[in-house]
């Protein structure tokens, strides 16, 4: 599907990374993706170190294949989790929300590959200079916390900016997206939203139903004015947040209403005051399947689309 730069680096079969999604991608989903030949990703999010440890143990019991932990650098437990990953012999770390330089040396000395998520070419260049092994360039179509540049532009500019492997993320849910990412210069893809509806994903059924029902215009990037936009499926919470005044009182209320909102949606199934994070490509996700079926479908679809393109059909 792609040259073997990324698969070799990570020791995986297919150049497909499952996006780290807090409160959504736990051991169950991550282990299934790794077992199917992709790179499963446990999302640490804001969860306590003990929880992350237990989930890592579960993954290691379920599969011998490589998996990654997505570390949210702004988490109050980031420091502790950084050390835990070394102790638990995790082989791949994906970082979000900032610059992982602080931990880079000790991770790499312990044989951990480090892939930061980047949202601009300048950040990608910096990450390469710091010595990161690859970058995940995530466009604004993605779900959850997003950057300003969309995938169509971000992938080629990052490709031109660095020589390390580039993983395309944001908006990819089928073979067409994967082929497009390849054309834009990526060495692999990261897919989040589609895996939310995997049978192995333990997210609340209400959340899955929302993804399956979503149309192209159903997501919105909330909190643009806060400087940390978050893409979610429109619901009561999203509408309330968008109507808040853009002053200090508004910001305070924004934070209060957002607090714990992802947990409410993903774990408790609260579709009104919960935050249903999802990418625009939820519109392309129509069926609940097993992880194995999803990956087979992605590869099969990719091959069909490629053949069509080659035949100029």
């Amino acid at each position, binding site marked *: 599907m792609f040259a073997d730069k990324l698969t070799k680096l990570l020791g995986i079969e297919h150049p497909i990374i499952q996006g780290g999604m807090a409160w959504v991608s736990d051991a169950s989903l991550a282990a299934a993706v790794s077992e199917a030949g992709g790179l499963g990703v446990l999302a640490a999010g804001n969860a306590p170190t003990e929880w992350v440890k237990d989930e890592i143990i579960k993954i290691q019991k379920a599969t011998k294949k490589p998996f990654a932990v997505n570390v949210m650098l702004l988490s109050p437990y980031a420091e502790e989790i950084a050390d835990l990953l070394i102790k638990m012999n995790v082989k791949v770390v994906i970082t979000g929300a*900032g*610059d992982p330089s602080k931990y880079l040396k000790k991770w790499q000395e312990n044989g951990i590959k480090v892939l930061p998520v980047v949202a601009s070419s300048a950040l990608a260049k910096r990450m390469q200079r710091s010595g990161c092994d690859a970058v995940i360039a995530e466009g604004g179509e993605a779900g959850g916390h997003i950057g300003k540049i969309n995938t169509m532009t971000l992938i080629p500019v990052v490709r031109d900016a660095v020589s390390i492997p580039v993983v395309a993320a944001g908006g990819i849910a089928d073979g067409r997206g994967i082929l497009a990412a390849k054309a834009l210069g990526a060495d692999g893809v990261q897919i989040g939203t589609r895996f939310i509806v995997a049978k192995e994903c333990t997210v609340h059924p209400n959340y899955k139903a929302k993804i399956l029902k979503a149309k192209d215009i159903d997501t919105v990037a909330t909190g643009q004015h806060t*400087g940390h936009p978050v893409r979610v499926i429109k619901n009561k919470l999203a509408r309330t947040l968008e109507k808040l005044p853009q002053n200090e009182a508004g910001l305070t209320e924004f934070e209060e209403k957002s607090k714990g909102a992802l947990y409410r949606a993903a774990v408790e199934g609260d579709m009104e005051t919960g935050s249903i994070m999802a990418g625009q490509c939820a519109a392309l996700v129509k069926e609940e399947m097993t992880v194995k079926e999803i990956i087979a479908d992605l590869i099969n679809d990719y091959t069909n689309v490629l053949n069509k393109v080659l035949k100029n059909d």
Partner: protein
Amino acid sequence: MVFEKVKEIIVDELGVEEEEVKLESNLQEDLDADSLDIVQLAMEIEEAFDIQISAEDQKKIKTVQDIVTYVNENK
């Protein structure tokens, strides 16, 4: 002069007016730079003055004065 050059880069990068860029201006609060803008700005400063700003140092840079001081101390 370092400040003049830094000002020129900030005006160019952030699309702000020259008059807005003062030594005491806070990049995020006064000049509306977000975290991606600051990374981009750091790259431009590095190129213009032929220096390297480490990630740790970059985090400490909050104001225009911080940039000028950093450049003066490191070039």
